[in-house]
């Protein structure tokens, strides 16, 4: 049972303190949302967890081991990352794109049946099977977003970290991807999402880490974190929190 944790992470860029002694233990089987206003350090924290950035102080750890110290391939099998910049630089077909997610698993001599199965599952899970032979350039923004998500899923990581995975999707596909992320967490993986939409966070997150100016304002079960006073403290806005007749929580910004 692997545990991903931020242990006193601090990071400065160009003399500015981006992250300041951030500590949090992420739990598997749950969706954790990293929330906070623009510039709060959400994406930077995600980069540290994915070992793309080395913190100045503290460390991101997987089972107590600094992620920077873990062998690249082992780490890549454990932690999958869906970055925010979703460029695909060559017009490759969707299957090839998704197959790139298998890289950490591949031996020296090409793909195995297990690789092909994992790619097929990832395509099915993102509803991309029908587009498997399409060139990436011919996909719509939403289809491309799903193809890139499938790429991460194909690696079958224990931890799925995603930076704004819903940003370019229309509501229908947002719900699809939310459902997919939900089922990944239910299947036992850890899901960590950077989100800027409070209502989407309220919809999916089990846990939330609320950041402001590189510090943790509050962290814990989403219901305890996404409260009007804490949101006011982090974002500087007044919100109304309510329940729809069907029982869905919503968070509506009212005033600054």
């Amino acid at each position: 049972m692997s545990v991903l944790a931020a242990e006193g992470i601090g990071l400065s860029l160009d003399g500015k303190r981006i992250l300041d002694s951030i500590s949090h233990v992420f739990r598997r089987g749950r969706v954790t949302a990293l929330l906070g206003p623009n510039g709060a350090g959400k994406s930077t924290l995600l980069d540290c967890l994915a070992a793309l950035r080395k913190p100045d102080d503290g460390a991101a750890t997987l089972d107590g081991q600094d992620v920077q110290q873990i062998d690249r391939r082992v780490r890549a099998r454990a932690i999958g990352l869906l970055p925010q910049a979703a460029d695909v630089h060559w017009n490759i077909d969707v299957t090839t794109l998704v197959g790139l997610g298998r890289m950490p698993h591949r031996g020296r001599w090409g793909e195995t049946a297990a690789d092909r199965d994992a790619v097929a599952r990832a395509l099915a899970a993102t509803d991309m099977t029908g587009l498997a032979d399409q060139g990436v350039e011919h996909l719509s923004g939403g289809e491309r977003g799903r193809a890139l998500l499938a790429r991460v899923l194909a690696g079958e990581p224990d931890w799925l970290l995603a930076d704004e995975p819903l940003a370019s999707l229309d509501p229908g596909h947002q719900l699809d991807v939310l459902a997919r992320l939900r089922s990944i967490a239910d299947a036992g993986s850890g899901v960590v999402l950077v989100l800027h939409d409070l209502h989407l966070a309220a919809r999916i997150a089990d846990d939330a880490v609320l950041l402001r100016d590189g510090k943790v304002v509050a962290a814990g079960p989403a219901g305890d974190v996404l409260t009007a006073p804490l949101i006011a403290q982090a974002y500087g806005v007044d919100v109304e929190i309510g329940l729809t007749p069907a029982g869905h929580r919503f968070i509506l910004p009212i005033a600054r």
Partner: protein
Amino acid sequence: MTRLTLWLVLALVLAACLSVASGKVWVPLDAWTAADPRSIIIVELRLPRTLLALLVGGALGLSGAVMQGYLRNPLADPGLFGVSSGAAFGAVVSLYFGYAVQLWLLPAFALAGAGVTMALLALIAGRSGSLILFTLAGMILTSITGSLTALAISLAPTPFVSSQIVTWLMGALTDRSWDDITVALPLTVVGAGLLATTARSLDALTLGEQAARSVGVDPGRLQLVVIAGTALCVGAAVASAGIIGFVGLIVPHMVRPFAGNRPSAILLPSALGGAVLLTVADSLVRLAPTVSELRLGIAMSMLGGPFFLYLLIRMRRRLA
């Protein structure tokens, strides 16, 4: 082995036969078997020249394909963006000081020149994947190395040296011997071997650097291998043939429609295609009805320049 590879190998054999046979004197391929006096033309002139064309073309085609994959830039080419000029400047320095009499010194200088330019290019723009940044850096490096080369020509101690430099810069495979093969072959083989190891990482870079790192690519190591491999391939090519541009640009584009856009899928076809292209071109310049032989480098630029413009026109909507 894909079908494309087989076709390219076949084309390679045909191109090599054409190159051995063609020239001011047509020599039938069976002339070297008998005690034919023309066998000396084949063994001492045509064979090394053909082998060198294959090596140089293959090295340039492969390094172009790797560079396009590494920089995620379909317009990248070691010739266009300064690496060849860097190698040429290195070689010119060795000519200027008269070091070129030693077999290995000119290639060593060319290699250093290519390596330094490629490293600068990679350091300035390689990691960002930015088309504009890279193009500008390449242009500026080309003009810096070009003006340094011009400086060397203008300061040349004797007219002989300056004309030697100018002739060499134009790029050609005329009058090459087995000595040139001895130098070019090991360098190219090592360079191509290094570049071939980057295939998987180049595929991953399709997703951008962040995602590539998250699937296990070591960007620092990849950068080193690309720099070293390109320096060896381009350095060896420039040392043995002068500046021959556009091979690395054209060939990957010609093989993509058949091999697909995946960076790793075009590496071998680009190497083979580059070898075919340059060998055919080198045979044709020998057949061209000009008083003195048409320079290969000039011929390739005349072919490659318009092709580059055509690429730009085709891509302008995506680039704008």
